[in-house]
C-alpha cells in the first residue's frame, strides 16, 4: 500500500538530514566558529557567509510545546491516527524541531517532559525521526 501522508522532499540543504535518519542517526547543523546549533538547515549561518557543519546529536531533549490533533485533517488520511500528538522538542543541543510523541497517551504529555528519538521508516527513501518518553 502506498504511503498517503505528506512526505519530505529532500533538497540541497536537507538531504544530509534525511540520509542520516535512514541510518538511524540524527544530524543537526552548527556554526564551526561559535558551536551554536541551528535548525531548520540553511546554507549560511546567520550573520555572514559562513557555512554550517553537520554533526550527529544526542537525540535527547524535552517537550517545549505540544498539540493533540482530534479532528483529522485531511480527514481521509489521518482518520485512523487521531488523537495524535505533535510537539516542538527542544533538543539538548539547544535547537527545536517538530515531531510526533509516540508510545505515550496524549494526556500524559507535559511541558519539559524528557524524550528521546526513535525512527520510523515510512518509504524506501524516507525514515522519520519520532520521539518517545525517555
Amino acid at each position, binding site marked *: 500500500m502506498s504511503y*498517503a*501522508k*505528506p*512526505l*519530505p*522532499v*529532500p*533538497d540541497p540543504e*536537507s538531504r544530509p538530514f534525511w540520509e542520516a535518519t535512514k541510518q538511524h542517526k540524527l544530524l543537526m547543523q552548527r556554526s564551526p566558529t561559535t558551536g551554536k546549533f*541551528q*535548525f*531548520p538547515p540553511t546554507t549560511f549561518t546567520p550573520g555572514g557567509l559562513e557555512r554550517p557543519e553537520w554533526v550527529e546529536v544526542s537525540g535527547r531533549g524535552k517537550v*517545549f*510545546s*505540544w*498539540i*493533540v*490533533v*482530534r*479532528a483529522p*485533517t*485531511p480527514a481521509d488520511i*489521518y482518520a485512523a*491516527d487521531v*488523537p*495524535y500528538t*505533535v510537539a*516542538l522538542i527542544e533538543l539538548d543541543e539547544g535547537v*527545536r*524541531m*517538530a*515531531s*510526533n510523541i509516540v508510545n505515550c497517551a*496524549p494526556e500524559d504529555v507535559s*511541558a519539559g517532559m524528557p524524550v528521546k528519538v526513535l525512527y520510523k521508516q515510512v518509504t524506501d527513501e*524516507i525514515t*522519520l525521526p*519520532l520521539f518517545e518518553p525517555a
Partner: protein
Amino acid sequence: MTWALRDKYAITGIGNTEYTKNSGRTVRSLASEACLRAIADAGLKVEDVDGIVSFNFNDSAPAIGVASEIGVPAAGYAVDYLAGGNGANLITLAATAAIEAGLAKTVVCYRAMNGRSGFRLGGGRDMSAYGITQWTAPFGWITYPQAMAMWARRHIVQYGTTPEQFGEIAMTCRENAMLNERAMQRGPMTLEDYMHSKPIVDPFRKFDICLESDGACAVVITSAERARDMPHKPVYIMGGAYGGGPTQGDDFFDAIRWPDHAHNAFKYLGDDLWKSAGITPKDVDVAQIYDCFTYSVLMALEGLGFCKEGEGGPFVMGGRIRRDGELPINTAGGLLSEAYIHGFNHVLEAVEQLRGHSGERQIKDAEICLTTAGAMTCASAMILRN
C-alpha cells in the same frame, strides 16, 4: 524605526461585499466591487484613483487586474504584497508611504478572497512536503489551527490561561456580531456552547477558530488635506507599526525558530506603535484585534502593553472587553463571528466606529481606535482617530 506620518493621511472611503460561504463569483469581481464601493463612499470617481494595493497568498486578484476591471486610467502604484494575517494594516501604511513619496495621490487598498469556496488557507499544502514544510507536514502538522495551537499551549504552560478566558473572547465577538447585519454568525453563544464545541486540536475547540469566508473589503487613502473636502468625516491614521521579532521564519506557517511562543510579534511592535501616535494604551477607546484564534487577542493585548505579559487571560474577564467595558474589542464580531477577510474587515469596522456609523453596536464617543493584524511572528497595527 518609527512610522513618521502622524495625522497626515486619512481613510476617506470604505467598501465591502457580502460575506458568504460560496460567492459563486471570481475573486477579482469581489475585489472590484469592494473597491468601487469604497471609491463611491469617498465621493470619488474611478479616474481619481492612481494607486491600488493588496496582499495575498496567491489566492487573491492581482492589483493590476482589479485596476483594469474597474477602469483606473493609469495605476502608477499597483502593488501586491505577499502577506498573511499581518497584511491588513501593512498595506494601508504602505499606501501612506507611497503617497508621501509622490508615487500616487489616492490609493485604494483591498483584500479579496474566496476563503471558503475556493483556496482555503492552509488547504493548499500538497502531499509532497517541499522546503520548510518538510519539517512540519510529515508529522501531521498541517493546518493553521494546528500551527496556532502550539502557540496557545505555550501561553497556557507559562501563564495558566484557562478555557473560560478563551471562551470570553469568543462570546464577546459573538455578542457583537449579533448586532451586525453583515456578520456570518449571529446566533447567541453561551460559555456552555463554547466549552462543548467540537474539539479540533487541543487546546482549541471549534469556537476558538475563526470563520472561513468569501468576500472583499477595501479602503481609500488620501492626504488629510484632500480628505477634508470629502463627504465623510475623515478618519486619520494617527500611528502605525509593522514588523516582528528575530527569526520570523521561512513562511507564514513556520515558527520553529521563534524565541518563545507564549508571546507573538506584538511584543516587538508596541513601543514603535505608541511612539508613532504619541499616545498610550489608556487613550484607546475601542480596539479591533486580529482574532484568527481566541488566544491571539491575549497576545496582542499583552504585547502592546494593555496588561502585563501573561496577564491577558485575567484582563479579558469581568466584562472589560465587552461593549460597555473599559476596552471594547471586535465590535463587529471579529474574524471569529463577523467574517474572515484576512483581518481587513477590522479596518472597516474601525472606520465605522470613528464615523459613528456602527448603529446599535456603536461605542459612545469613540475617538481613537486600534486595529491589529497578525498573530504569529510578524504583524501590523494602526491607531486611527476621528
